[in-house]
C-alpha cells in the first residue's frame, strides 16, 4: 500500500494503482478520454493531466503514472484547466462537430468535456477531417471524422477480443484508425469497439438515428442466449428494445458482449412473434383465445395421462422460477417424463462430473481464469459457444502470459493466441488425448494422487493410451501431448474448459470424466484460482441442472420420449421453448415422433417448425419480457428483468405453468418470482440461504467462488475410434449464432444469413469447389445441400456445418455422432 495526498486528501491505495485510480478511490474526478477501466493504461489524449509536487515543471498524465509514496497531487488549478482546455481545442480543430446529427450526442465524452471546459470559441482553426465513412456495414458504423485518436477501439479489439481489427495508420494530421488495407470491417462484430469509443466515431448501425440516449429506459438484465450469462442493459424506447447499452457496472463481463448479446436482440421485436394461442382445427392451426387453448391442453393431457402418458421437454432459456413451476406442473400432471435440452447434451457430462467429483457444475468462477498459468480448452469451439468467457481466456494469455492448450478437431481463434498450442486431432478423439495426458502424468509421476480414489485402476486401464499409441490414432505428436500434460501439471493456477450443447452429444460422459480425471490428477478441484469449467449452451442450462429438470425414477428422458412417441407408446408431448425438429440430432426420429404422437403442445415465442406440427401452440415470453433469475455456467445467479410488455396476448411461461397447474388441481399461487425463488432456495442443494432481493448487480455465486467437491475419484473411460472415410462432417455452434432463435435476429443474420458447410482449401481444390458453390453431402442414404465456405481452419477431410438453421436439414444426417462419415460432391 502507498500513501499519497490528492487535492489535500490523504489516500491509501495499492502500489499498482495509477494516480487516476487513486483519485477515483478518493472520490476525486479527473477528466479522461482515452482511459478505460478494462484496458491497459495508454496515455494518448492528455486530458487527464495533473500536477505532482515531486515532478514540478511539467504536467503528468494521471492515467499512466503509478502512485509513489508521499506523492502530492493537485488535480485542478487554473494552469491545469488551461492546458486541458488547449488539448480540447486542438482536438476540436479537425473534429467535424455535427452533434445534432451524431448519435453520440448526449453521452459523448468530447461533448461533455467541451462543455465542462467552456471550449468556445476555439482559438485555433484548421482543416477539418474529410475522411470517407462506413455506413454500409449493417452492424457497425464508422465515421473517422469524429475520431479523437484515443486508440480505445484498437486496444479493446486487441487486448480483450484478441481479434485486432484496427490500428493507427499514417502519421501526423493524416493519422487515423483503420482496418487492414482500410477495407470494410469483417470481424466478430462483438461491438466492443462501439462500446469503448468515447465519441461518435464508432456507433451501432441498427440504432442509427433511433433516439437520444436520455430518452431510453435502461433495464439491467441478463443475455438470453448462452450460458456465459453476460449482463446486458436493454435500451427501451416506447416499449421496444432498441439497443443494448454499454454497462460495465453489472455482472462480471466488464461490459463485454458477443455479437449475439450486443446485436442479437431484435427477435424480441419481431413481427413474427406469436401473439395469440393457436389450436388445430380441421388440420389447420387457427388463432383462438386462452380459454379454448387451455381447455384443449387440459383435456388433451388428461386424456393422454389416462392412456399412455405425457412427456415434457423444455429448453434451458426459462428462468429458474419457471423451471421450478414446470417441475410442479409435471408433478400435478402426475408424470415423471420431464427433461431439458434434448437430454443427451447435458446428461453425459454431468454424470461424468458427478461420478468423479460429486458435483454437476463448474468448480470456480470466470474472473479467476484471468490469473491462470495454464488453460486447457477442450474443442476449439469453446470460443464460439462462450465468446465472452473466451475473452477472459484472451486476457489470461495476453496479460498473464498463460499457456493455452486446445484439444480440437479444427483450428479456431484460440489457436492464434500467443503461446497457444492446438493439439489438432481427428474428430471424435478428444477423450483419447485427455487419456494420454493422464497416462503420461501418471507414468512420469507428475500426477497428484493423494486422496484420489481409483488411481491404480485408472493407471492399468490407461495402458492403451500412452502418448505414442494415441499419437498414432489421432495424429497429434506424442511429445506435444506430454508437454501439454506437463504444462498443466506444473501450473499453480489452471483451468480446464468444457462446453456442452445440443450439437456436442457424442462421448459426453467420457469427455466429462476424462476432463475431470485430468483435473483431479493436476490438483485443480479445490485449489485456489483453479477450476474445471462446465459450460452449458443456453442462458439457464446450469439452472436446469441445479433444479433437477431431469426424468424421475423409471421415467423417460427426452430421447426416450421421442422414441416412445415414434413407437406409439406415448400419448402426448409438451415441448416448451425448444425446436427439436431443427436442433435435436436425428430429424427423422423427431419427425416420426411429432407425427405419431396423438397430442402435441408447443409453447414458444415463434411458430417454429416444431410448433407448426402442434395441436396447440401457446405464445410465450422472451427474456426481455420476464422477471426471474438465470444461473450461468459459473453458478452465478443473476436477475432477469422485464423491459418490455408481452406482445399481444402472449403470457410468460411462468403464468402459463401456473394456470395449467391450477387446472390440474395444484393451485399454488405465488406472489411472484421472489416467492418462487424462496422455495427454490429452500429445496435446491447449494441455493440455500440465497435471497432474491440480495441478488445484486454482481449476482450471487452459489457454492462460493471455489465449489467444494464431494470426492476425487478417477474413472477409466474408453476413447473414441476415428472415422475412416475420406470426408467426415462435424457440427457445432457458430460464433454468430446460438441455438435456433438467433436465426430470427437481424444482427447475427447480417453476418451469417444462411447455413453453410466449411471446408479447407485443400479439399476445396480437390473437389473443385469455389466459395458459395452448393455442395452435396450424402450420409445414411440422405442427401443435403449446403453452400461451401472455404478457409484455412479445417483440416483435410473434415467439414464443419453449424446446426442453427432449420433450412439446412443438418440433423437429417447428423444423428448424434462425433463425426458423420459423408460423401461429398459438387
Amino acid at each position: 500500500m502507498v500513501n499519497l495526498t490528492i487535492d489535500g486528501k490523504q489516500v491509501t491505495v495499492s502500489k499498482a494503482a495509477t494516480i487516476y485510480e487513486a483519485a477515483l478511490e478518493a472520490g476525486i474526478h479527473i477528466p479522461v478520454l482515452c482511459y478505460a477501466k478494462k484496458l491497459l493504461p495508454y496515455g494518448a489524449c492528455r486530458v487527464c493531466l495533473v500536477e505532482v509536487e515531486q515532478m514540478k515543471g511539467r504536467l503528468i498524465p494521471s492515467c499512466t503514472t503509478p502512485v509513489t509514496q508521499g506523492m502530492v497531487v493537485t488535480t485542478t488549478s487554473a494552469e491545469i484547466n488551461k492546458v486541458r482546455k488547449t488539448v480540447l481545442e486542438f482536438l476540436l480543430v479537425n473534429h467535424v462537430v455535427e452533434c445534432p446529427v451524431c448519435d453520440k450526442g448526449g453521452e459523448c465524452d468530447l461533448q461533455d468535456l467541451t462543455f465542462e471546459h467552456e471550449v468556445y470559441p476555439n482559438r485555433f482553426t484548421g482543416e477539418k477531417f474529410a475522411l470517407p465513412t462506413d455506413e454500409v456495414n449493417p452492424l457497425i458504423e464508422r465515421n473517422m471524422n469524429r475520431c479523437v485518436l484515443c486508440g480505445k477501439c484498437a486496444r479493446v479489439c486487441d487486448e480483450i477480443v484478441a481479434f485486432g481489427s484496427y490500428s493507427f495508420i499514417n502519421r501526423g494530421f493524416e493519422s487515423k484508425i483503420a482496418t487492414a488495407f482500410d477495407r470494410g470491417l469483417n470481424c466478430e462484430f462483438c461491438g466492443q469497439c462501439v462500446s469503448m469509443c468515447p465519441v461518435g466515431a464508432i456507433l451501432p448501425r441498427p440504432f442509427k438515428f433511433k433516439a437520444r440516449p436520455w430518452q431510453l429506459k435502461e433495464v439491467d438484465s441478463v443475455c438470453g442466449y448462452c450460458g456465459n450469462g453476460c449482463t446486458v442493459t436493454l435500451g427501451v424506447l416506447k416499449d421496444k428494445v432498441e439497443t443494448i447499452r454499454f454497462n460495465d457496472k453489472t455482472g462480471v463481463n466488464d461490459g463485454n458482449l458477443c455479437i449475439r448479446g450486443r446485436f442479437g436482440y431484435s427477435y424480441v421485436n419481431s413481427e413474427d412473434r406469436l401473439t395469440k394461442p393457436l389450436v388445430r382445427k380441421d388440420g389447420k392451426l387457427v388463432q383462438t383465445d386462452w380459454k379454448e387453448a387451455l381447455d384443449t391442453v387440459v383435456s388433451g393431457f388428461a386424456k393422454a395421462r389416462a392412456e399412455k402418458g405425457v412427456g415434457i421437454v423444455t429448453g434451458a432459456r426459462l428462468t429458474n422460477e419457471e423451471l421450478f413451476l414446470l417441475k410442479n406442473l409435471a408433478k400435478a400432471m402426475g408424470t415423471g417424463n420431464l427433461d431439458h435440452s434434448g437430454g443427451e447434451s447435458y446428461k453425459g457430462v454431468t454424470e461424468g462430473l458427478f461420478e468423479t467429483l460429486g458435483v454437476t457444475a463448474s468448480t470456480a468462477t470466470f474472473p479467476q481464469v484471468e490469473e491462470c498459468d495454464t488453460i486447457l480448452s477442450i474443442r476449439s469451439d469453446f470460443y464460439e459457444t462462450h465468446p465472452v468467457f473466451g475473452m477472459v481466456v484472451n486476457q489470461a494469455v495476453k496479460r498473464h502470459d498463460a499457456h493455452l492448450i486446445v484439444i480440437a478437431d479444427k483450428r479456431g481463434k484460440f489457436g492464434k493466441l500467443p503461446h497457444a498450442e492446438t493439439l489438432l486431432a481427428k474428430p471424435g478423439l478428444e477423450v483419447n488425448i485427455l487419456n494420454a495426458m493422464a497416462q503420461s502424468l501418471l507414468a512420469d509421476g507428475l500426477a497428484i494422487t493423494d486422496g484420489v480414489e481409483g488411481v491404480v485402476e485408472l493407471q492399468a486401464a490407461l495402458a492403451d493410451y500412452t502418448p505414442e499409441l494415441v499419437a498414432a490414432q489421432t495424429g497429434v505428436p506424442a511429445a506435444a501431448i506430454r508437454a501439454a500434460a506437463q504444462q498443466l501439471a506444473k501450473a499453480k493456477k489452471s483451468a480446464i474448459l468444457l462446453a456442452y450443447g445440443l450439437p456436442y452429444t457424442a462421448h459426453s460422459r467420457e469427455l466429462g470424466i476424462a476432463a475431470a480425471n485430468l483435473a483431479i490428477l493436476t490438483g485443480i478441484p479445490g485449489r485456489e484460482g483453479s477450476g474445471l469449467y462446465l459450460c452449458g449452451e443456453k442462458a439457464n442450462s446450469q439452472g436446469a441442472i441445479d433444479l433437477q429438470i431431469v426424468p424421475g425414477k423409471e421415467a423417460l428422458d427426452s430421447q426416450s420420449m421421442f422414441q416412445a412417441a415414434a413407437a406409439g407408446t406415448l400419448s402426448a408431448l409438451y415441448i416448451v421453448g425448444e425446436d427439436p425438429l431443427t436442433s435435436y440430432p436425428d430429424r427423422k426420429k423427431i419427425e416420426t415422433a411429432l407425427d405419431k404422437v396423438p397430442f402435441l403442445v408447443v409453447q414458444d415465442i415463434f411458430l417454429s417448425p416444431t410448433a407448426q406440427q402442434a395441436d396447440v401452440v401457446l405464445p410465450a415470453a422472451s427474456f426481455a419480457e420476464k422477471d426471474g433469475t438465470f444461473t450461468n455456467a459459473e453458478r452465478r445467479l443473476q436477475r432477469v428483468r422485464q423491459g418490455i410488455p408481452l406482445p399481444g396476448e402472449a403470457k410468460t411461461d411462468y403464468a402459463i405453468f401456473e394456470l395449467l397447474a391450477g387446472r390440474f388441481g395444484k393451485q399454488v399461487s405465488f406472489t411472484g418470482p421472489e416467492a418462487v425463488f424462496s422455495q427454490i432456495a429452500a429445496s435446491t442443494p447449494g441455493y440455500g440461504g440465497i435471497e432474491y432481493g440480495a441478488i445484486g448487480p454482481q449476482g450471487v455465486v452459489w457454492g462460493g467462488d471455489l465449489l467444494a467437491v464431494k470426492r476425487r475419484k478417477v474413472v477409466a473411460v474408453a476413447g473414441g475410434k476415428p472415422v475412416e472415410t475420406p470426408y467426415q462432417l462435424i457440427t457445432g455452434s457458430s460464433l454468430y449464432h446460438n441455438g435456433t432463435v438467433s436465426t430470427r435476429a437481424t444482427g447475427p443474420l447480417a453476418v451469417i444469413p444462411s447455413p453453410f458447410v466449411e471446408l479447407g482449401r485443400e479439399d476445396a481444390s480437390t473437389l473443385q469447389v469455389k466459395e458459395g458453390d452448393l455442395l452435396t453431402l450424402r450420409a445414411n442414404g440422405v442427401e443435403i445441400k449446403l453452400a461451401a465456405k472455404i478457409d484455412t481452419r479445417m483440416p483435410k477431410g473434415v467439414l464443419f456445418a453449424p446446426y442453427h438453421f432449420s433450412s439446412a436439414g443438418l440433423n437429417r444426417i447428423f444423428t448424434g455422432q462425433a463425426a458423420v462419415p459423408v460423401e461429398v460432391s459438387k
Partner: protein
Amino acid sequence: MFKAFAKGLSITFKHMLPGHSVTVQYPHVKLKPSDRFRGLHRLVPAHDREKCVACYLCPTVCPAKCITVESAENAKGEKYPRIYEIDMLRCIFCGYCVEACPVEALEMTGAYELANYRRSDFVFTKERLLK
C-alpha cells in the same frame, strides 16, 4: 382649478376624435405584431426538405412537453424528422425550442389566430408547420 379640469377633459375628448382610438376593429382590422412576438411555430424549409435535423433538443427543452420528434434516416442517409408535431393546446409559447435549435430550423411567427373547432386541429404536423 377649472382650467386644469378643462385641460384634462380636453385630452379625454381628443382621444374620442377619429384617428385617436387604440381599439382596432378586430377581425376587420388586424394588428401586425412585433417581430419578436412569439406566435405559431414555423419549420424553416431548406432546398428539398425541412432544415430540421431531428436533433431532439427542442422536445427535450420544452417545458410543456408538447413537441414530438421522431428521427429517421432518409434515402440520402441524412437524419431527418420523420414526425415533427407540436400540440398547440399545450404549448406555452415560451420560445425555448427556438432558442435550443442548433440549426435555426425553428422560428416563431406572428400568427396568433390559433382558435379551432376540434382538438386534433391544434396538433400541428410537420406539413402544417412547414407552410
